[in-house]
């Protein structure tokens, strides 16, 4: 099992580009093939292949015993995944939209995340909770959230947010092999769905072999000297686009993709901030008491003397509205990012 095998296989693989959804499924299928204990449960994951194509084709290869449609009983089936994991299996359980967490949060938080600690380490809960996040397609307040901060705040779960097909595959292998509960949050807009076009970034070359990406290593997507932009998920691509625009203005932005929120790669953030002196955090979650505050706080704790300005862009503490002009207003756009960087650079 290769780790960060990008270099080794790059030559052979650059031709083969995958969507993020295909990359995710490839990792799941590999693990299911190689470990009888891995199985997957969720609503509409069998015949439908997952509403966001997160399980396409798995039913055909593995059958209904290992690719299980379940009743719309998130408490029961996520809790059952906990029980199966404690019994030594390695379930993957999908929560169709992260917005539905509220019907099952006790199993997610009080059992899945805490049982390892509460049992003093005598129990493990090796399960992966996959869930679709994000807006930009006008699905309104109960179907458009990311809730990154909500999950990252509560200790005991590792929280993964891939932004490219390459990362999606490597992080999924890591998630399934990890002995701890992992919440794997995939952004709908990045999956490469025919009916919800992705930006160009997430579709990448993906090695055929399995490989893992360690948790807690942010990816510096673009090296730059002037402003540090820390972000994740969909907004990695918006930040990269903004950085291209800014090049023309002679502003050299560094863009950091966190990739995992728990563990969080504070060192990479601090190194960058010490270099640029300015920090913009961009997030698709609600602004207050969430990801943006935490990143700014870590920068302030670790590099206060080097910091000359901080700024953040996130959902401005409103539920996510339906109508296009309203949703566009609250979700940070490429131009918003570029403008904020310009402000910071002044």
């Amino acid at each position, binding site marked *: 099992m290769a780790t960060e095998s990008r270099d080794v296989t790059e030559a052979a693989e650059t031709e083969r580009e995958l969507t993020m959804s295909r990359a995710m499924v490839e990792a799941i299928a590999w693990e299911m093939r190689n470990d009888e204990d891995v199985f997957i449960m969720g609503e509409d994951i069998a015949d439908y292949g997952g509403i966001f194509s997160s399980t396409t084709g798995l039913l055909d290869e593995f059958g209904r015993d290992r690719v299980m449609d379940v009743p719309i009983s998130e408490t029961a089936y996520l809790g059952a995944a906990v029980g199966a994991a404690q019994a030594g299996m390695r379930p993957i359980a999908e929560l169709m939209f992260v917005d539905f967490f509220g019907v099952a949060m006790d199993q997610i938080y009080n059992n899945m995340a805490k049982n390892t600690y509460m049992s003093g380490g005598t129990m493990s809960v090796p399960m992966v909770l996959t869930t679709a996040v994000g807006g930009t397609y*006008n699905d309104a307040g109960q179907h458009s959230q990311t809730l990154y901060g909500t999950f990252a705040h509560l200790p005991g779960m590792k929280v993964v947010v891939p932004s490219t097909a390459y990362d999606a595959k490597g992080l999924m292998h890591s998630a399934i092999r990890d002995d701890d509960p992992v919440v794997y949050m995939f952004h709908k807009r990045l999956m490469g769905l025919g009916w919800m076009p992705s930006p160009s970034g997430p579709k990448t070359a993906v090695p055929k072999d399995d490989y893992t990406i360690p948790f807690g290593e942010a990816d510096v997507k673009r090296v730059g000297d002037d402003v540090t932009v820390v972000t994740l998920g969909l907004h990695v691509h918006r930040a990269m686009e903004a950085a291209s625009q800014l090049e023309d203005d002679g502003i050299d932005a560094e863009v950091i993709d966190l990739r995992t929120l728990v563990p969080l790669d504070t060192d990479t953030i601090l190194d960058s901030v010490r270099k640029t002196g300015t920090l913009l955090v961009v997030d698709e979650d609600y602004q207050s008491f969430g990801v943006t505050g935490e990143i700014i706080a870590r920068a302030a704790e670790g590099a206060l003397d080097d910091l000359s300005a901080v700024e953040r862009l*996130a959902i401005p503490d*409103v539920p996510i509205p339906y109508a296009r*002009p309203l949703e566009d207003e609250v979700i940070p756009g490429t131009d918003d990012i570029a403008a904020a960087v310009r402000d910071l650079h002044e």
Partner: protein
Amino acid sequence: MVGVNKLKTMYEQMVTARHYEERLVDEYLVGKEPAFDISAGPIPGELHLAAGHEASGAGVCIHLRNDDTVTGPHRPHHIAIAKGVDLKRMTAEIFGRETGLCRGKGGHMHLFDPDVNFACSGIIAQGCPPAVGAALAAKKRNTDAVAVAFLGEGAIDQGGFLESLNLAAVHDLPVVFVIEDNDWAISMPKDRVTDVADGSKRAWGFDLPGVRVDSDDALAVAEVAGEAVMRARDGNGPTLIEVQVHRRMGHFMGDAEAYRPEADIERAKQRDSIDRLADDLRSHGVTDDDIDEIRERAHERVEDAITWAKKQPEPDPEEAYENVFTNPPATAATDGGENGGAN
């Protein structure tokens, strides 16, 4: 007994709902062809259509008054129409306009009309507890208003529904739960997710009456619902009803239904509750001309609503910051401090 006038009203509501959704399909597909992009066109986002469910909305709501509360699920149009939700403002909401029921903030899964006490939740079964609460309020205020919660057969395995049955039962609250059984929860047939073919059996474990209406015969629905609503209004407590309906379309627009046997799709389309009710009307002496007139009136109302809605202004982006609170805090600090209002 449900008299001919009520049947005519139900028929009009059902025709309105069906035609409304047919027209919504057209409007929804604008900008989405040839390549289907869910976020394109005048109506973006998910759209769950209820063609084939009309008998349940009309048959139940025919017994309701404005002060009765209805909570709908993610597939709410036929219920909203039968409950008397303002069709123009509902349409404007679906088009995301400023004058929409929710000023463009809710969209089609989140229709709220306080004038007729209608609300929705897009989360499975989560309209049930608020319906119980509306019934509780009615009881506390000594009115004879009732509440009705609609849900799909896929929702009967969800805690929020099951807990609500008990809470309603133990306080004998005036609430009726209506399961719309269209055989499918997205791609999952009901026998894959529960052992109980008749969802109204769920009532048994709570010492509640449960009744199933085995076809989408609007008259049969109206009779069963009439009893349940009267029971509630008279202070005799809740009832659980299941109605067999049909899903004539995909789960939502864009659903290719690859999982669904051809024969099942055909079967759903053959059983048309609207035609059946037209026959019932005829057998009550209503003429074809009368029926045509009702249909025309319904179609006109739909066209009017759509025409009106499309002329309405889009909300100003700044409105995104309004309505988080009814009573907004004095301090601007709520929405992100000095950096609030991100974009």
